[in-house]
C-alpha cells in the first residue's frame, strides 16, 4: 500500500528536480495529445521545439520573447517570496507601455540620445504607479491585493485601447487604432545583427543579476524571505509587513513597466490596442517554474519563450491553433504544483492493512 507521509525536512533535491519532472510530464502530455489529434509526435516535437530556433533569427526571437518574461518574473518573484501576490503584471506592463510610449509620442520631433533613458524611466515609473494602487489599498485598507491587481489589468488594457482609438491615434493612420510609429531615437537598438534581439534582453539579464544580489546579499531580501516562510517569526523579529508589501509590489510593477516599454519601443515600435500576448500571466508561471530564484527564472523564461514560438510555428507547420500555447503553459504549472508535493512529503510503501495511521483510525 502506498502512503504519503511528511518528510522530517523539505527535500532540497526535490525542489530542483520537480521543475524537470514537470517539463518531462508536459512533454509526455504533448506526445499523447499529438497522437490523439492524429499527428506524428516526432514531427510535432520538431515543429514545436526545433524548427523555431534552428537559425540565428529564431534564436534571436527566443531572446525577444524571453526578455519580458525574465524581467517580469524576477520582479514578481521578490513579492511571491514574501507572500505578496501581485497578479497584475499584465496591467503594470500595459501602463508602463502607456507612460513610456506616451513620452515617445510627446518627444516625437526630438532627436536625442536622452529620449530612450527617459522612456525607460517612464515605463518603470508607470508600472510602479499602477502597482502602488494595490499596495496602498492593501496597507491602508487591508484590501486583497490579488483581486485589486487583477481588476487593474482590465482597466489598463481598456485605457490603452481608448488612447490609441482616440487621443493618441496616428493622424495619418487611416483611422486604424494605432499610434504613430516611434521615431528612430525612441527605438531600442538591436544588439545582434540579423535578428530582432534588442536592448531589452540586456536589461532583463541585468535584472537577473540584481535579483540574485537582492535575494542573496541584502538584508531586506532576507527579511522578505523569512516573512514568506513564517509570518509570525518575521513579526517577532520586527520586520515590517507593510514595507514588504510595498517593496514586493513596487519591484514587480517597475519590472513589468520596463518590460512593457521594451515591447513598444522594441519589436512593436508603436502603441497598439494590445501590446502583450499575456506575458504578465505567463511570467507568473515562469516565476514558479524557476523556483522564485533568478537563475531558475532565466532558464524557465527561455522554456516559456520556446512554448510561445512553438505555438506560432505549430500554427504554420501543423495547422494547430496558437491557443495551444496557453493550454500547455497551464499544464506545465499543474505538473509543477503536483510534483512539489514531494518536496515536503514522501511516498512510503507499507505492508497492507496491519498499519493504519491515526487519521484512518479516527475515521
Amino acid at each position, binding site marked *: 500500500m502506498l502512503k504519503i507521509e511528511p518528510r522530517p525536512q523539505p527535500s532540497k533535491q526535490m525542489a530542483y528536480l520537480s521543475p524537470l519532472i514537470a517539463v518531462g510530464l508536459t512533454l509526455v502530455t504533448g506526445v499523447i495529445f499529438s497522437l490523439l489529434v492524429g499527428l506524428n509526435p516526432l514531427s510535432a516535437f520538431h515543429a514545436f521545439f526545433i524548427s523555431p530556433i534552428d537559425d540565428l533569427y529564431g534564436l534571436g526571437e527566443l531572446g525577444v520573447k524571453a526578455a519580458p518574461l525574465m524581467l517580469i518574473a524576477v520582479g514578481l518573484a521578490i513579492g511571491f517570496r514574501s507572500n505578496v501576490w501581485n497578479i497584475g503584471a499584465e496591467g503594470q506592463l500595459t501602463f508602463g507601455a502607456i507612460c513610456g510610449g506616451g513620452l515617445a509620442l510627446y518627444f516625437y520631433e526630438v532627436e536625442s540620445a536622452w529620449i530612450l533613458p527617459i522612456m525607460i524611466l517612464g515605463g518603470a515609473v508607470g508600472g510602479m504607479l499602477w502597482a502602488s494602487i494595490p499596495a496602498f489599498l492593501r496597507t491602508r485598507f487591508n484590501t486583497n491585493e490579488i483581486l485589486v491587481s487583477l481588476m487593474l489589468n482590465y482597466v489598463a488594457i481598456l485605457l490603452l485601447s*481608448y488612447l490609441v482609438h482616440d487621443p493618441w491615434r496616428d493622424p495619418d493612420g487611416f483611422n486604424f487604432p494605432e499610434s504613430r510609429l516611434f521615431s528612430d531615437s525612441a527605438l531600442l537598438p538591436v544588439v545582434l545583427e540579423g535578428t530582432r534581439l534588442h536592448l531589452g534582453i540586456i536589461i532583463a539579464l541585468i535584472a537577473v543579476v540584481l535579483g540574485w544580489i537582492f535575494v542573496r546579499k541584502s538584508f531586506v531580501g532576507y527579511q522578505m524571505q523569512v516573512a514568506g516562510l513564517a509570518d509570525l517569526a518575521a513579526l517577532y523579529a520586527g520586520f515590517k509587513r507593510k514595507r514588504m508589501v510595498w517593496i514586493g509590489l513596487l519591484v514587480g510593477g517597475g519590472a513589468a513597466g520596463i518590460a512593457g516599454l521594451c515591447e513598444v519601443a522594441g519589436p512593436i515600435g508603436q502603441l497598439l490596442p494590445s501590446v502583450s500576448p499575456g506575458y504578465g500571466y505567463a511570467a507568473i508561471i515562469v516565476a514558479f517554474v524557476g523556483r522564485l530564484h533568478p537563475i531558475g527564472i532565466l532558464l524557465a523564461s527561455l522554456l516559456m519563450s520556446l512554448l510561445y514560438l512553438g505555438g506560432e510555428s505549430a500554427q504554420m507547420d501543423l495547422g494547430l491553433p496558437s491557443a495551444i500555447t496557453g493550454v500547455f503553459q497551464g499544464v506545465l504549472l499543474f505538473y509543477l504544483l503536483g510534483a512539489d508535493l514531494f518536496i515536503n512529503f514522501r511516498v512510503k510503501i507499507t505492508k497492507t492493512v496491519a498499519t493504519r495511521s491515526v487519521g484512518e483510525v*479516527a475515521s
Partner: protein
Amino acid sequence: MTETMVGILLATLGAGTPLVFAALGELVTEKSGVLNLGVEGMMIVGAVCGFAVAAESENLWLGVVMSVFAGAGMALLFGILTLTFQANQVAAGLALTIFGIGLSAYIGLDYTSVALTGIQQIHVPVLSDIPVIGPLIFSLDPLLYLSFVAFGAITYFLYKTKTGLLLRAVGESPESAVSLGYPVIAIRYMAVLFGGAMAGLGGAYLALVYTPLWVEAMTAGRGWIALALVVFSTWRPARVMVGAYLFGGVTIIQFHVQGFGVDIPSQLLSMLPYLATIVVLVLISRDINTIRLNAPASLGKAYHPSV
C-alpha cells in the same frame, strides 16, 4: 418610462445571473476552507463546452448539462492538486485560470462564428400579462429561475442542515472535524466540485442565454468579480445576490449612459465594473475585523490528515 425601467431591470437580472451562479458556488467552496481562484477558468471552460455541445447536438439543455460537468471537471483538477497533492491554493487557482483560458480558446475555435438561438423565457399564462411584475417575475428564462432556486437551496443547506453545519465546521477547523471522525478531504472535494459545477452554470448562462454566442475570453473577468463578491458578501448567500445584481446594474449602466446623451468613450465606461469591484472591496475590507470575523478560519490553508 415604466417600460424602459422594466427593460433595465431585466437586463440587470440577466447580467447579474452568471455572477450569482459563480459566486454562490465559490461561496460554498470557501465555506469548506478552500480558496479556489480558478473561477474564471472554470467559468470559461463551462461556457465553451456548453456552447459547443449545444451547437453540435442542437439541444440547449444538453449544452447546459455539459457546462456543469465541464466546470466540475476543471474543479476536480484543482481538487486533486490542492487536496490530494497539497499544492498552494493560490498558485493552483491561477494555474486553473491560465489553463482554462487557453483550453477554451482551443476548443472554441470552430464555434466563433456559430449563431445559436438561446434559451427562451417561460411566459407563465395570465400572470405574465400583469404590468411590471409580469415581465419581471413571470416571464424569465428557466436558468434564471434555477438561480433563485439555487440561492434558496444553498442558504437552506448551509444554515439548516446537519451536512451544511459540517461543511462550515470543516472550513472553520479541519482539525476538530477530523478528530470528531469526519472525512475532511472528502467534504472539501464535494465543496470544490460543487463550486466548479456552479461556475460552469454561470458560463452556460453567458454562452447560452445572455449573449448567446461564443467569443474568446468572453467571461471578461466575471470569474474574478465573482470572487470579489464572495468577500463583499462577507460569506453570506443573501448578500451575494445583492452584490451580483448591483454589478449587473453597473454593467448595464454603461450601455444606457450613452443613450442618455452623455458623451463618455465606451472604453472608459467598460472600466466601471472593474473599478466598482475595487471600490466595494475597499469598503468591505476597511475594517479588518469584518473580514476576520466572517471569513472561514482555515480559508486557503492546506490540510493534510497525517500532519
